[in-house]
């Protein structure tokens, strides 16, 4: 939790729109924005099938050996607690929303281990909002996910919240720091 708090605060400052943070419950219950957290969508990765129709998608890689893996694959290391359509398959990238959407200013944060450098990174899963379901690369992983009773640890919420529209399109997975 301390690593989480540290990065929640850093993120909070970076995305800040004010709102002081008094107590845990007050923050959870009343923060209009803050370092809160989460995207969307449940159930098993087995359901995340494509609809048939031709060739497999070639991998989308970073080109950096320190950030290995296919960003269109649910197995990519940053997606350890994501829930939704991968923006890399939707016109965005691993950390950029697709054109036409608005990125949620506050997000659910996971802690994922990078297999290349062994570090645990804090990953921000921002939702992209204002365009209907992308429908590509549905992915749900839940390392560290907890029920909605602890909002900042739950990826079932639709965090298209402080955005102009709450319609959900896809989710990114951006590095916001190293868990210390």
């Amino acid at each position, binding site marked *: 939790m301390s690593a989480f708090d540290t990065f929640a605060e850093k993120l909070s400052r970076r995305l800040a729109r004010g709102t002081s943070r008094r107590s*845990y*419950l*007050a923050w*959870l*219950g*009343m*923060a*209009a924005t*803050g370092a*809160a957290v989460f995207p*969307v*969508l*449940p*159930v*098993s*990765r*087995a*359901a995340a*099938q494509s609809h048939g129709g031709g060739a497999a998608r070639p991998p989308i890689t970073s080109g950096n050996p320190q950030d290995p893996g296919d960003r269109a694959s649910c197995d990519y290391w940053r997606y*350890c*607690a994501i*829930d939704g359509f991968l923006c890399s398959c939707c016109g965005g990238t691993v950390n950029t929303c697709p054109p036409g959407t608005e990125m949620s200013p*506050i997000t659910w944060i996971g802690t994922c281990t990078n297999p290349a450098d062994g570090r645990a990174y804090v990953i921000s899963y921002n939702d992209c909002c*204002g*365009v*209907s*379901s992308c*429908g590509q690369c*549905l992915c*749900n*992983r*839940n*390392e*560290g*996910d*907890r*029920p*909605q*009773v*602890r*909002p900042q*640890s739950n990826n*079932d*919420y*639709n965090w*298209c*919240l402080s955005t*102009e*529209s*709450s*319609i*959900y399109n896809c989710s990114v997975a951006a590095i916001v720091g190293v868990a210390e």
Partner: protein
Amino acid sequence: MRSTPFALALLLSAFAGSPLSAAAPPPLPEEALPAVATLPENYPKSWVLVHDFNFNAILDGRVVVVDTADTAQPLKGIIRTAQFGNLLFAPDKHEFYTAETFYSRLTRGERTDAITLWDSVTLQPKGEIVLPGGKRQQAVTYNGTFQFVNGHKWAVVANFTPAQSVTVVDLEGRKVLSEIDLPGCSHFYPTGARGFTTFCADGSLTSIQLDDKGQVASSRTVADVQDVENQAQFQNAAMAGQTAWFVTFRGQLKGYDLSGPVARPLPGNLSVGTAEGGQPEWRPGGWQVIAAGPKGLLYVLMSPYGKEGSHKDGGTEVWLIDPASGKRVSRIALQAHSASIGVTNETTPHLIVTRADAGIDVYDAVSGAFVHSLGNTTAFNPILVTPVP
């Protein structure tokens, strides 16, 4: 008399060879139009409500009415539950209620949150209660975010902005009664005469009773009912009468008596038990992983691949636990990797299972025998199964 079958055979054969001959039967009759089907006043107990999350168009969510005994025509009707919507059913009033969110331009524009009242016989809308503030909680479908209180007269709707609160609505009077701040607490379960229980981030629960205006009459907190970090409760509860049963990520069973004004945690250390073959261990897994069945039995969907983060990955067996004896009475091996379960209230109850590939399978809830599959004939993403009471 004996010649009748022959005459019939002759007629049919004439018919096939020379259909418009003098021997042909009269043409099929004209059919009356327009014609729209209705549903029975009292739904048969083989019927269930299946929430279709509709991932590929979440704004177009729906609940489908399904007859689990009818493999030819299982889909009986569709009720709109738009944009992470929720549904409640009051069979005594022959009404459904949906809590939904709309935009004036489908994906953009003006937002309206509303409860729609639907006739359960015609599935036509019969009224609407607009919810103020554009704050209705949107999430993957849980049964605790839109609940009855005060019998079927009122309902509570969860809000999340991320500020957490609950809006109390008079369904019969068709008006909003109140909004109650509940910082740090989520999901609601009807409790006592006119109240609800909610679970809070610090591991406590809070039970609130309302006055006849929908304002807080009493509020009582019970500390340390769950360990959210290590033994969190799956939030979709199984209701056995007025007892809410939850299973935790690692298989504890937690009962709460909700008949009084304050939730009373049931004593005892119940669990689903353990088994061989886990990789590394058996744990509950799926979305709606617990259901209440006949003779007080609890049904829990289990995965052999249990570990941190596996809790939504679905399961391959259903384990039956008798909370009275504390014993596991049987294990049902499922036909397919499955996500959610429910148990019907039929004389011969059935276990209804939604598969990871979106099919729906039906088992004998007592013997565990596979009965039939409905296939993928009703919903794109069946996520909750609510048997007719």
